């Protein structure tokens, strides 16, 4: 069979983050039914699938936001799902960054405040935190908007600030759930271009949930979640 020239999935054991046979339900509704997935360090992975397939639930399980009902989630050699809530919160703050479709910024705070916030929570000095926030604003072409409240920014500007906030503390993994979902095509493209450029430069692993193939095309590899399971193509189906 003639198939895609896909990058092969990394081999078991070399993953930075991994879900193993994960089940998660909401009430009587199952969202994940034996989902397994591994992401290598530095990899940019897109999780795709129809609405309600469980792709966002999988991302939330990988990020330690949801605890699986069954199965295991591993991060950097540690079993994430077995950690206490306090430890998981700390891990999310220090090792993970998050970008969502919207609603992640504090609208009453300025762009610089929002970017500096994760650093301040990590006990970085105020001066150093704001210096780094200013650096990010310059890098993202938003230098003149540092003092502007994020509630007053355009969608594209706000998503760039959200990206800076997610990456300012140099997380090992960036979790992005429909990061361009509220943006028009061209603005979304700019955000994805920035996200990928910075992730590659910093060696950040990215787990990206999207229903948009053009966004998924920025990733190194994609998987499809369908009916709560991850569909992975075998090596035999991947022709180089």
């Amino acid at each position, binding site marked *: 069979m003639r198939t895609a020239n896909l990058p092969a999935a990394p081999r078991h054991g070399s993953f930075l983050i991994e879900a193993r046979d994960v089940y998660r339900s909401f009430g009587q509704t199952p969202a994940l039914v034996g989902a397994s997935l591994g992401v290598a360090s530095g990899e940019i992975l897109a999780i795709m699938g129809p609405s309600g397939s469980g792709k966002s639930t999988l991302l939330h399980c990988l990020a330690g936001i949801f605890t699986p009902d069954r199965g295991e989630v591993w991060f950097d050699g540690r079993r994430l799902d077995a950690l206490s809530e306090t430890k998981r919160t700390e891990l999310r703050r220090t090792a993970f960054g998050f970008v969502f479709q919207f609603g992640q910024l504090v609208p009453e705070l300025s762009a610089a405040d929002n970017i500096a916030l994760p650093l301040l929570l990590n006990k970085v000095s105020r001066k150093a935190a704001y210096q780094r926030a200013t650096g990010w604003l310059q890098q993202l072409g938003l230098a003149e908007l540092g003092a502007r409240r994020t509630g007053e920014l355009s969608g594209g500007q706000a998503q760039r600030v959200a990206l800076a906030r997610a990456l300012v503390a140099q997380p090992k993994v960036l979790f992005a759930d429909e990061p361009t979902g509220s943006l028009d095509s061209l603005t979304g493209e700019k955000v994805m271009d920035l996200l990928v450029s910075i992730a590659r430069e910093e060696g950040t692993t990215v787990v990206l949930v999207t229903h948009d*193939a053009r966004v998924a095309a920025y990733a190194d590899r994609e998987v*499809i979640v369908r009916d709560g399971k991850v569909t992975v193509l075998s090596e035999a*189906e991947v022709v180089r």
Partner: protein
Amino acid sequence: MSVPLTLLGLLEREPSHGYDLKRDYDAYFGRGKPLPFGQVYATLGRLARDGKVVPGEAEPGAGPDRKRYAITSAGMAEVESWLAEPAEAEPHLQTVLFSKVVLALMLGRPAERYLDVQRAAHLQRMRELTEIKRKGSMVDLLLADHGLFHLEADLRWIDVTTARLSALAEMVRAS
């Protein structure tokens, strides 16, 4: 891509030698598939025969043909008509894929798997085009966009067909 009409269009800018036309064609439209010189001169010959271009006097210099070609009013009318007329919307782009899916269902083969593999192939091509967009010129970017949007449309069809496979399977088996 219509080579004769594109060459005619390039000639509408100014009279040109075959060499110049080839160079401009390759730069803007060739995209890794340069136009052979033989095809350039054969096309110019046919356009001249049909009264759409006129060759000038042979000029001194190296090379097989040093004539400068100019577009005629008939040629200009043809370019105008071609540019103004919408291209065929090609409603049967999915014929091959559609046939494969239906046949797979008829034969009890894993149609969903085939569609997954096709999706992966499409996404791989989209990855390549996205990389071209990120690193290429504005012309590369526009061409890559065109390819990306077409592939995206195919992917939507693949996704919707995947969601409808059970119903389609029932229909195929019942008939």
